[in-house]
């Protein structure tokens, strides 16, 4: 038995193993299972409605609201300045520059939290950063900001203070519409995230 035969046997067997290996993709941006669960548990990616109201009132240019509901629901009502990326189109090449970028803070929202949460998990798996979720979604937005519940007179001062802020925010959003941010055509695609670049190599 010469070297060629030994070599052939070894590489053909290794090659057969390679051919039957399940298709897996190793990515350096992948979170470990524990990190993923921890982040979900701690809800670090959730923006509360009060925080969002603050950001919108201060006209923070660094936030981008993304409505992940279908376009009918978006047409009927959407938050000021929001763009519409229905969940099923999230990974459409046209939208990738919006969800995979570094210049803005993307906030996904839907009626509740389920759809936006799913959008976040999908983008997280791909290693996209700067994506957040509006906790409670539009339902929470309306119940807490647009029509805040009047606290009982016996409630402590902090709750009253919160109520007053919310009431002011409510006036802001239902009164004069911030029309400047309404026109979608003026929203430019954000700066794409610097991709993990391939190493320069070969003879160049």
């Amino acid at each position, binding site marked *: 038995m010469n070297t060629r035969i030994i070599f052939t046997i070894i590489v053909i067997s290794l090659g057969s193993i390679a051919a039957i290996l399940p*298709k897996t993709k190793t990515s350096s941006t992948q979170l470990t299972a524990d990190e993923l669960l921890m982040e979900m548990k701690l809800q670090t990616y959730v923006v509360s409605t009060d925080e969002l109201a603050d950001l919108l009132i201060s006209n923070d240019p660094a936030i981008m609201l993304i409505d992940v509901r279908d376009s009918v629901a978006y047409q009927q009502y959407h938050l000021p300045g929001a763009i519409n990326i229905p969940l099923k189109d999230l990974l459409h090449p046209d939208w990738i520059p919006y969800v995979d970028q570094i210049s803005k803070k993307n906030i996904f929202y839907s009626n509740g939290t389920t759809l936006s949460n799913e959008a976040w998990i999908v983008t997280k798996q791909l290693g996209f950063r700067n994506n957040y979720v509006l906790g409670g979604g539009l339902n929470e937005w309306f119940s807490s900001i647009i029509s805040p519940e009047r606290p009982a007179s016996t409630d402590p001062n902090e709750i009253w203070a919160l109520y007053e802020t919310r009431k002011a925010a409510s006036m802001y959003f239902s009164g004069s519409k911030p029309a400047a941010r309404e026109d979608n055509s003026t929203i430019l695609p954000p700066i794409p995230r610097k991709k993990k670049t391939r190493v320069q190599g070969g003879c160049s």
Partner: protein
Amino acid sequence: MGPIVPLFNISNEINLLMAFIIGLGFGFVLEQAGFSSSRKLAGMFYGYDITVLKVFFTAAITGMLGLIFLNFMGLIDLDIVYINEYYVTSSIIGGVIMGAGFIIGGFCPGTSFTAAAIGKIDAMWFVFGSIVGIFIFGEVYPLLETMYMSNYEGSVKISTILGIRDGYFALLLIVVASLMFWIGEIAEKKFKREDIIDEI
């Protein structure tokens, strides 16, 4: 998780040190394989010594299987590993010119360095020739620029083009290479040149 240098922001000095050590291994193996002899290299095209074919394909298969297994085991991120860019026209024309250079000169750049290192004078002239060749290319580059840049296809993998998984393609290549080794060894017996083999 590899590749280590780009992922862990290793300093350039360490990277260069790694380059030197990798080069040591590269040069040692090339010389040990007998690639410092132009007549051994050229033997492949006349059938009396197919060492080039054996070493070249064995190395490519080993590297390929290694990358597939490393990726499967989660030890390397193939999105970062360099994949050659494919410019159809210039790859083919460049390859044809290099092929002509190979049969005329009897070396390729890597082997010419090892051969020059052990004192082959023809290899030193080959290195000189390649320096001149690159200089000429630099001078005539404006004339060739359109051709150099035409038909760009990106960093495309052959398995993607064929629409099969990397593993299948590797197995296919291994089977083809094994057949080539077998035929090559038959050719080695048929075109045997004792005089040349003794000399190199």
